[in-house]
């Protein structure tokens, strides 16, 4: 099985879905000739033409709004937001329109579409090219939110998202685009179900919940502490909404301890919901306080190198949190 990068998994998914279903098209800034600023759509313009790989005006709300309209007509748009930091102008369209379409029309109208957005820090992007936006959107009923952490899931979740009859926000851990490699079969269809977390490493001492780049670092940290005899169970959440509550609760039932890692700022971040779930439904299972390791409560990641390092969780910080929680 060939090893590919995470972004190549994304590219392959779009390529295959464009080939499979003529209702699928891509719209976004610089997705055409440029192939996307991260090269996620490279080659697709040449292969599928300007009608199916559309360079939009520089205007996010209408990238999403036009996508919604096309979806209402029966198309399957993939809308690219160049950086998650720039999704905010489209907040109204995503939250008030796409997410509420099915419920508000009692199922008469639906908006099957994918909104792709590279997110996360550690790439020298400063306050506006590093944001993690998942907490805003995972709170929105009607929208599904997924985050892959490896090439296989990147490909399989994106293909599943394109086929999903609902609007799906697909957040891409951009730091891992070329850093994270993995085997993906060439000769079979890769599909990863939306709504299922994955235990990526079994362990008995504590449960670690993460997604995206933080899942990558969490596995590294788990490996580090394994040498010290701490067996961490790592759960890759993959789908943030709807959350796979069974897998989360099942893991904590086994280990009795929970560490949640995310790179967004701490307060009100996505990890709060995991912690709340555990506080409500794992009360008798917990042997220690739930622990969250997240970015500090400043407005996104500062640019200057030492400040960025200060902000970002990484394998060392995660390992330290594991040790502390293990020792409780």
């Amino acid at each position, binding site marked *: 099985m060939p090893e590919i990068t995470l972004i190549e998994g994304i590219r392959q998914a779009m390529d295959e879905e464009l080939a499979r279903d003529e209702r699928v098209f891509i719209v976004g800034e610089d997705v055409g000739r440029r192939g996307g600023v991260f090269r996620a759509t490279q080659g697709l313009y040449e292969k599928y033409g300007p009608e199916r790989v559309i360079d939009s005006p520089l205007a996010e709300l209408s990238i999403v709004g036009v996508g919604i309209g096309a979806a209402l007509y029966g198309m399957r748009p993939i809308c690219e937001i160049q950086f998650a930091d720039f999704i905010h102008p489209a907040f109204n369209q995503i939250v008030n329109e796409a997410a509420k379409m099915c419920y*508000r*029309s009692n*199922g008469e109208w639906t908006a099957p579409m994918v909104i792709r957005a590279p997110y996360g820090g550690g790439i020298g992007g400063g306050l506006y090219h590093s944001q993690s936006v998942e907490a805003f959107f995972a709170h929105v009923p009607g929208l599904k939110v997924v985050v892959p952490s490896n090439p296989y899931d990147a490909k399989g979740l994106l293909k599943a998202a394109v086929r999903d*009859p609902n609007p799906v926000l697909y957040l891409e851990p951009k730091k891992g685009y070329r850093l994270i490699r993995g085997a993906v079969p060439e000769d079979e269809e890769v599909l990863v179900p939306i709504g299922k977390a994955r235990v990526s490493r079994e362990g008995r001492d504590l449960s670690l919940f993460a997604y995206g780049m933080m899942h990558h670092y969490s596995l590294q940290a788990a490996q580090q502490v394994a040498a010290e005899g701490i067996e961490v169970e790592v759960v890759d959440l993959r789908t943030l909404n709807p959350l796979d509550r069974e897998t989360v609760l099942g893991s904590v039932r086994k280990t009795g301890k929970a560490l949640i890692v995310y790179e967004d700022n701490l307060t009100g971040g996505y990890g709060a919901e995991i912690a709340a779930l555990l506080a409500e439904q794992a009360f008798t299972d917990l042997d220690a306080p739930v622990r969250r390791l997240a970015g500090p409560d400043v407005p996104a990641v500062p640019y200057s190198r030492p400040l960025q390092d200060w902000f970002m969780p990484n394998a060392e910080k995660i390992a330290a949190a594991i040790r502390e929680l293990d020792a409780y």
Partner: protein
Amino acid sequence: MVVTGTEAKLKKETLREIYWIMLLARRLDERAWVLHRQGKIAFHISGIGHEAAQVGAAFALRRGHDWVLPYYRDLAMTLALGLTAREFALGLMGKKGEPSSGGRQMPSHWSLRRANVVSHSSPVATQTSHAAGIGLAIKMRGDDAVVLTSVGEGSTSQGEWYEGVNWAAVHRLPVIFFVENNRFAISVPQEHQMAVENAADKAAGLGLPGVTVDGLDPLQVYQAVAAAAARARAGEGPTLVEARVFRMTPHSSDDDDRTYRTREDVEAMKARDPLGSFREFLRSQSVLSAEVVAEMEAQAKQQVEQAVAFAEAAPYPEVSEAAHPVYVEDVHHA
């Protein structure tokens, strides 16, 4: 009323039909105000004064084939597209079977899947980019439908509106941007919204044709929208059509317009009531006789009565449905 010659092209039957929808919309709307005063409904937002513009626009489309994304004032337009009086009354009361949302949305938040009338929300102008997206899909598929979407003049201040129109202009999409200009956004007069004289002047900055017509005359609106639809179907791109209308009532049943406009202004509007002037015009053209007018009134009255009675007797949605459908459980429509 400017007689433009268009009406010559419309069959007498069609002219009568236009009048009939305007009349039905008016009587339903008036009844809604009464129901509100009686405490039988919680909210009403009125289209009185806009009917000519709305029905003129709708009749210029291939109704049921073309796509429409209306806004809350478009009762007459939506009736012209196929909504029934009963369905409207169900919506007023949030009763089961109401076709726009099954009682989830407030009244006058239109949606009628069977007639290609697309669901809209309350935040104004959000449907503008949806219209562009539908236009894009029509173009991609090579279909011959056109799209019409409407807003009030105040809503053209939204970035939402600008971006949607810009998309359609750049891609020459088959979309008609219809602006019902009643010179007020709730209490805010047009001069606080824009520094141009007509909302249609905005078209120049976006690279599409813009035209302003008298929205008290359904035939002028018909002509302008028909021309825009022809352009759109011919692949020549979008058009902005502005219809100058009157909002003859307060903004909604929650509003009281006495703080921001004089009774004289409102009376002056009522003196130019588009329903009355179109009726007189049709009578002058011998399209309507006094008998037919009376008959239509009686029929409208009866439809309104029946609709209200039906809705009052209808059940509310069951609480057991309330949790659904947040996601598409079956992919029937997708």
